[in-house]
């Protein structure tokens, strides 16, 4: 019915009137405001700062803590002493605590029951000097357990490595040689990552997922309410019998949804920047292993103006594409609830590629992947936060998002003009 009218173009005042109405309804919904503004500000620092901080404290704390290690069999006295000894700074501060050795009869059972953090079984008398044969020491620990690996297990293996070295150096001394003969060639690792890559942290792959997820959650509330919600309330029909054209209705709803999604995206970027700032302040006060661990995991997002622009461009175009998709899908639903079931699988569109992004370093997609709407944008965001932004990748991703937004917008317009869609109830 309105196809001819739709082709006459858009009147900005009408588009804005439709958008303003939907935005006002969104602004007055506390749940939507929470999802759009509060959640990014809470969840992003939690992921990028809180978890790494917690892990850093846990792992770092293990160093200062004395773990209990069970022993079954005779352990050479120097090795026993080395295991129990604390490493301290000249001022007496414990840098790395030793372990407490306790006798156990069954090392495996002792570890499994949790009585000890790890256990040593000495099946035979161990040689007490290098060159006097080889002995095997069984180290029982829950190897898949991060706490065991970073605590008792790591301390025992480090001490045994040091003990072996001490015996070897003693033997070399007897031969008139020094320690340097053990290491004719040494390797000096030099990090070729850019400074932003070094700072971005191991959890950087989460950033595209969180950004897109917040864009999606911000858009969903407005899109579903503006389409299926309007149908269910019986307000869509009154809008469609007003002089506003169908294209203006679709454009207004798209504008309102995109603005909500972008607000969410803006707060997610703000969340990242705040986390980066907080992380920097924290690391300045913690120049130790804990700080290194925390920083290495959580990272600090600092963006130059070009990267920030790329990030915003990708976010804006992705918001537009996702909003158009949600409106095209939402208008098919009869009720708000039905629309929610339709849009729920769309979140997989964000989560699945995000899982793949963990392995982005192993994958080489070629330029084509950047032309896949949303996914290309996620890859480009990851490059940007790692300080390795490629302008052509960002431009392709933005172009793909805009093109898909246009096609989905046209699909939505077609749906708004179809009687069987509008009056499907």
């Amino acid at each position, binding site marked *: 019915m309105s196809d001819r*009218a739709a082709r006459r173009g858009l009147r900005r005042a*009408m588009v804005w009137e439709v958008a303003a109405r939907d935005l006002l309804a969104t602004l007055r*919904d506390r749940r939507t405001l929470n999802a759009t503004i509060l959640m990014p500000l809470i969840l992003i620092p939690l992921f990028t700062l809180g978890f790494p901080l917690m892990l850093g404290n846990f792992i770092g704390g293990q160093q200062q803590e004395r773990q209990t290690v069970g022993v079954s069999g005779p352990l050479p006295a120097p090795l026993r002493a080395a295991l129990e000894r604390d490493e301290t700074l000249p001022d007496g501060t414990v840098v790395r605590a030793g372990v407490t050795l306790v006798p156990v009869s069954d090392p495996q059972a002792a570890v499994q029951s949790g009585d000890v953090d790890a256990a040593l079984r000495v099946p035979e008398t161990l040689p007490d000097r290098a060159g006097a044969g080889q002995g095997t020491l069984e180290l029982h620990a829950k190897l898949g357990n991060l706490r065991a690996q970073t605590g008792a297990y790591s301390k025992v293996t480090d001490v045994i490595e040091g003990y072996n070295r001490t015996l070897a150096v003693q033997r070399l001394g007897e031969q008139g040689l020094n320690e340097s003969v053990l290491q004719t060639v040494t390797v000096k690792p030099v990090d070729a990552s850019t400074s932003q890559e070094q700072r971005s942290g191991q959890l950087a792959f989460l950033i595209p997922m969180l950004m897109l997820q917040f864009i999606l959650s911000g858009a969903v509330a407005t899109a579903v309410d503006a389409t299926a919600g309007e149908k269910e309330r019986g*307000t869509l029909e*009154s809008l*469609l019998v*007003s*002089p506003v054209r169908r294209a203006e209705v679709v454009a207004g709803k798209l504008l309102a949804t995109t603005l909500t999604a972008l607000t969410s995206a803006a707060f997610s970027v703000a969340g990242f920047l705040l986390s980066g700032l907080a992380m920097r302040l924290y690391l300045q006060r913690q120049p130790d292993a804990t700080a290194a661990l925390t920083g290495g995991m959580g990272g600090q997002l600092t963006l130059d103006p070009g990267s920030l622009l790329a990030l915003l461009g990708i976010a804006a175009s992705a918001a537009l594409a996702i909003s158009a998709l949600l409106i095209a899908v939402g208008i098919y639903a009869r009720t708000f609830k039905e629309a929610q079931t339709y849009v729920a699988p769309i979140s997989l569109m964000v989560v699945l590629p995000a899982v793949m992004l963990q392995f982005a370093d192993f994958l080489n997609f070629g330029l084509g992947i950047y032309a896949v709407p949303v996914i290309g944008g996620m890859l480009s965001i990851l490059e940007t936060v790692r300080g390795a932004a490629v302008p052509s990748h960002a431009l392709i991703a933005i172009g793909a998002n805009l093109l898909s937004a246009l096609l989905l917008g046209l699909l939505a317009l077609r749906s708004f003009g179809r*009687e069987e869609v*509008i009056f499907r109830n």
Partner: protein
Amino acid sequence: MLSVQQVGKTYGTFHALRDVTFSAQGGEVFGLLGPNGAGKTTLLRILATLLRPDSGQAQVAGFDITRDPEAIRARIGIVNGGMGLPARLTGREVLQSFARLYGLTRAQTDARITELDDRLELGRTLDTRAGEYSTGMKQKVVIARAVIHDPPVLILDEAASGLDIFARRTLLDFVQASRAPGRLTVYSTHVMSEVEEVCDRVAILHGGALITLGTLNGILDATGERTLERAFFALVRGQPTGGAHV
């Protein structure tokens, strides 16, 4: 003001409307009577340019429904029983928003809202969010929204459905008071007493077809019945109860 010529509409194999033809003039309240499923809502949605007829043609306020839908939408107001309001907006905000869509200035909008407040007894409803409205309050604001631009054609489709006795009275009084030269009100309902009270002429739809058209007295005389309800049953006796399948 309103001219309908052989309008037909089919949903799949279901004939919702079959060759419906009638006309209505400005200054009258035209009743559209029929049971649920008679095709009243389909017909009114066609006149409101929301649905496309499969056959026939119609003109509203001098404009063709297929050629000038936008011009028609600017000149009609429509209320149906299923229409609602955005729950988080106040009545005043809804009216102001629609006034802007119809191109009213702020002064015109304020004056019109004051007038409608007086006629429909909106009172505190205007500044309360629609989510808190009773059915009657909601329907009053829906009516106010439909007439905010003072349209020459007002279409009321089961507008009194679900209203309590007070809200229903306000609606019927409003329809009576809206009668004016050059203004057509199409009042669609399945409640005979409402038609008897407000309508000048009545078209009875049944099974998607127009089975009679005339003044109330004319229909009673033609059927020899004393009430519209009895006349209705006399007219539809032996006819299919719903739209026929093709």
